[in-house]
């Protein structure tokens, strides 16, 4: 009976966390929009999301033991994120192209690559994260790391220009009228071995 009580207590806490985090993500998605709800819902969702986050200790200092303990539990159980995959709308994807400039003036183009398709899906996820991050510094560091991985394969390259863009997908009717996917320039970074951090160039 005692074991059952322990299981029951854990069950209540565990599912309370799952439900609360899923509700928070749903509110966040509505707040980010666009959704089928009228725009006036956005403000309500933002406020509600903030309240739920506060209730979950997400507004506490990062070093707070309660927040740290909760984060640890969420990560080890796999419930730290919601389940809104491809929701409410399917986002576009991103593309990163490297221009490799050789000392003799030659230019080659390369894409970041991995060996197997399973890792390829992960690489696409990485590009999505680079594209979606709000932090310019983080974006630049990640692009720089990818450029460095390429540099190891081409040690004689003088400079690398990384061009990051989003892929614009055509709608069904656009596709029927001959329009295909297109690329929109977002950022460019120039890297050289001696210069250190690249200089970003925004659209």
């Amino acid at each position, binding site marked *: 009976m005692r074991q059952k009580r322990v299981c029951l207590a854990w069950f209540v806490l565990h*599912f309370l966390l799952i439900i609360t985090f899923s509700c928070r993500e749903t509110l966040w998605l509505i707040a980010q929009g666009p959704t089928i709800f009228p725009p006036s819902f956005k403000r309500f969702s933002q406020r509600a999301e903030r309240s739920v986050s506060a209730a979950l200790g997400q507004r506490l200092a990062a070093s707070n033991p309660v927040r740290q*303990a909760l*984060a640890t539990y969420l*990560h080890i159980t*796999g419930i730290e994120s919601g389940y809104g995959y491809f929701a409410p709308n399917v986002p576009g994807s991103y593309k990163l192209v490297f221009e490799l400039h050789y000392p003799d003036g030659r230019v080659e183009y390369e894409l970041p690559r991995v060996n197997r398709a*399973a*890792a390829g899906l*992960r690489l696409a996820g990485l590009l999505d994260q680079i594209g979606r991050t709000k932090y310019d510094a983080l974006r630049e560091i990640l692009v720089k790391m990818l450029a460095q991985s390429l540099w190891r394969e081409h040690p004689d390259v003088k400079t690398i220009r990384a061009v990051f863009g989003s892929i614009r997908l055509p709608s069904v009717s656009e596709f029927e009228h001959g329009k295909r996917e297109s690329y929109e320039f977002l950022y460019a970074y120039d890297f050289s071995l001696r210069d250190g951090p690249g200089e970003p160039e925004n659209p």
Partner: protein
Amino acid sequence: MRKRLLEFLFPAEPDTWLSILRLGLGLQVTLYSSSLQNDWNYLLSGTGTGLISRDLAESLLSVESHFVPRLGWLVALGAHVGLREEAVLSVAWFCLLAAGGGLLLGLACRSSAILAWFLHLCAAKSGGFLSYGVDNFMTIGLFYLMLSPLPDRYSLDWRLRAYRSKDPQFFGFWRRVLQLHLCLIYFFSGLTKCLGSGWWDGSNLWRALIRPPFNIIPPEILVRWNYFLPVLGISICLIETGYPVFIWLKKTRMVWLICIFGMHIAIGFTMGMYLFALVMIILNAAAFGPGLASRQAESTCGQRTEMAIR
């Protein structure tokens, strides 16, 4: 009320579902590690020899919590005994593969489940920028598996060792946990999809299928079937949102499970997300698969009796 709740949460169940979960996750872990064999060190290296530095993901993870398992712990431990990072990562990969094999055979079930959960979690968290949905669901499945009353009757442990879990109510409890978690997963997944207009007119399904790297089917073929896209989009919303209701009803359970399997098989083949599809099928098969045939027969039999009485 309390009694009914306890009866619901602790039903006496056989361990068939646990066998399915163990075998399924054993297969999943084995395929997961095999699929990353050639890229493992490249994706998870922290010394500037990989794709991106593992140290960055681990530093960001530390902002959230210092206690979430990560490969950096193992690398630091290896450094104490003179092992290089590459060697530690290779050993971790091999141990994960062995844990998957252990689960498949049912050998040292509990230890294999704990090892698989720990190493997979380390890899998923250290490769934070490279993780996606499949990692979450593997963590969820492996977490429940390692806490469940192993070994099950189809494991080698059952045959070779004296210790056996006997209380069928705990088999029932952990099955309920998995069942209810799946209900929440599908409900919120469906609900958030319903919020987007693109799922009602089929445009989101179109975008999902032509979006690199999921664009396995040429758009020229897809466009011929574009009239079906709204129907499929709405069906996905309804199947997912309706899951917490219709999966419990005897009459609709089989249909709903078939629809869910169909949806995940389609995701696997049309978008190339084989591991994601497999883990979802395994979790569903373990949670709602066992006893389905007998319940269906019971339901049909009940209907016939009812008709005969009328």
